[in-house]
């Protein structure tokens, strides 16, 4: 069953290459979502179902929401609706659906067969994850909050409306 891993890894690599070679930002984002989903599958195969679920919820989920926001805020009007209808044909989405299909089939196989020999891994449960986060890694969690604070303050400062532009 080790081929499940290699297949998921190949999908992840392919999608990542597609992310950095697409010229259209939205296409790149879609491939990035696929790459994150395949990473989630790899985590699942390695015996970390909790991390896999987080990967799907936080990364794939959050990025999808961001992407929807971008579409909502940038392309408004009947013109763009028309354009989107033209984009929404078979040739645009069959590639991604094919990749997602591979991952889905892999997930079903893995769920039905369990973890056979070559991938004989110990499963890490959410309980164990939270124990280590509140035990040895407590300081890491606290420091990560400081890291997020730095990112938040930075985004606030750089993203603020430009009122105080110096007069030339």
């Amino acid at each position, binding site marked *: 069953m080790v081929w499940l891993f290699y297949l998921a890894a190949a999908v992840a690599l392919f999608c990542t290459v597609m992310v950095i070679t697409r010229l259209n930002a939205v296409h790149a984002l879609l491939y990035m979502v696929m790459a994150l989903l395949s990473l989630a599958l790899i985590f699942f195969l390695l015996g970390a179902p909790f991390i896999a679920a987080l990967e799907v919820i936080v990364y794939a989920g959050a990025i999808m929401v961001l992407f929807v926001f971008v579409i909502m805020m940038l392309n408004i009007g009947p013109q763009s609706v028309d354009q989107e209808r033209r984009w929404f044909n078979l040739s645009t989405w069959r590639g991604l659906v094919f990749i997602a299909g591979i991952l889905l089939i892999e997930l079903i196989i893995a769920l039905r067969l369990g973890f056979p020999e070559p991938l004989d891994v110990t499963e890490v449960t959410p309980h164990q994850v939270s124990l280590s986060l509140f035990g040895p890694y407590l300081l890491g969690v606290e*420091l*990560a909050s400081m890291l997020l604070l*730095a990112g938040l303050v*930075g985004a*606030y400062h750089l993203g*603020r409306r430009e009122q*105080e532009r110096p007069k030339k």
Partner: protein
Amino acid sequence: MTLQDLRPLLPLLVLSAAIVTVMLVIAFKRDHRLTFALTLIGLVLSLAALPLASSGLPRTVTPLVVIDGFALFYIALVLAASLVVVIFSFSYLEKVAGNREEYYLLMMLATLGAVVLVVSNHFVSFFIGLETLSISLYTLIAYTRFERQRIEAAIKYLVLAAAASSFLLFGMALAYLVYGTMQFDQMSSPSNFSAADSALLTVGLAMLMVGIGFKLALVPFHMWAPDVYQGAPAPVTAFVATVSKGGIIALMLRLFAFVPLTLGSNLWNVFALIAILSMLAGNVLAVVQSNVKRILAYSSIAHFGYLLVAFLASNALSISSMTFYLVVYIITSLIAFGVITVLSHPQKEFEELEDYRGLFRQQRRPAIFLGLALLSLASLPPTGGLVGKIFLAAAGVESSLWLLLAALVIGSVIGVFYYLRVAITIFRQPEEESAVWTAPRLTPLAEVTLVLLSLGLIILGIFPAPLINLIEAVAARLG
């Protein structure tokens, strides 16, 4: 983790409390002076907490953090350097239009990141500390965000730092694969290393070195340094040159105290090549620059190449000579960038070599401070630079690294040329048209700080023994 563990952590706790306080105060009342004062108080209190933290050491607080004499010494260095940068920033920020308060918040967060690097004993705290430092720096570099070159510098730093971080993570993963632990003090190589294991470890450590080399701007990972040094606001450049690099050096010393780097191994040879390239390329490229911030950027590349000579010697003198040199380098850089900061305006930085022409006639004291810093960078007496360089070379001689020492000597000779070129420019007759430049006023606090730093630099040059003894005492614990 118990209550007793909190005591050694006091400097970090005080700094974090200061960060939260400053953030809340900004939310309720925006006031530049108030924020500045609170930042100073926070950093001073954190420094004052160091003696309180120093009982019952060394102490491992959770697997992530270790507090020992070495860590406390470097925390003091990082906090003091950060304090000096904050003092210099005040008059610069007064001239910035728009919000100034977040600057101090980010400065403290970046300092916290450097402190975490200094105390980290684990890949997780290493990475979190490094990212806290980097993410704060992205914004700090672009802080006066309507100058084009700030944004350009910040984007360059962001892209390259992200690439370096991914190398670092991969390197950590490989080292973890071989050692089976992410804790530095448990990374002792087992005797039954297979060939595959040691190959994996070599690749992993080389990737770690890419991440570290990027932060230290060693050749060939130095591309960002000149642009970021030039593009960032002058006080932020001072921070990048001192606090950021000091934290990384402390981490590197701690990591490689446990992970062996044997003389003559493949990895050692790669490091030696990096050191030689840094010393030569840094100095040669500095000669052709006409911008003082760029000159200092290339000079920092060379100086960290010198540091690597002692690092590669890996003998009894290594850690103490590197630490001593780093202290001298940080003091010197703070003086040089401090003078640039106090003379600069956010929209027109005082950075072109031509600007410095005749500085001595217009502004006696800053010119003397800058001249002293240049003497120290060129390792000329009576400054600490000379003692530091001799100390580094002694570590190299001890392990008979003649090729590296030759590069050090050649680099230093080239260095003297361009440092003295700047120094001579300062003392030259000003041209007629340069008289339009109006000299800004030095704040008393900045002036006192510059005087103290200069005195410190001269004292280290004449009477270095007390500091060397202190460093040897704290370094003995490591490794």
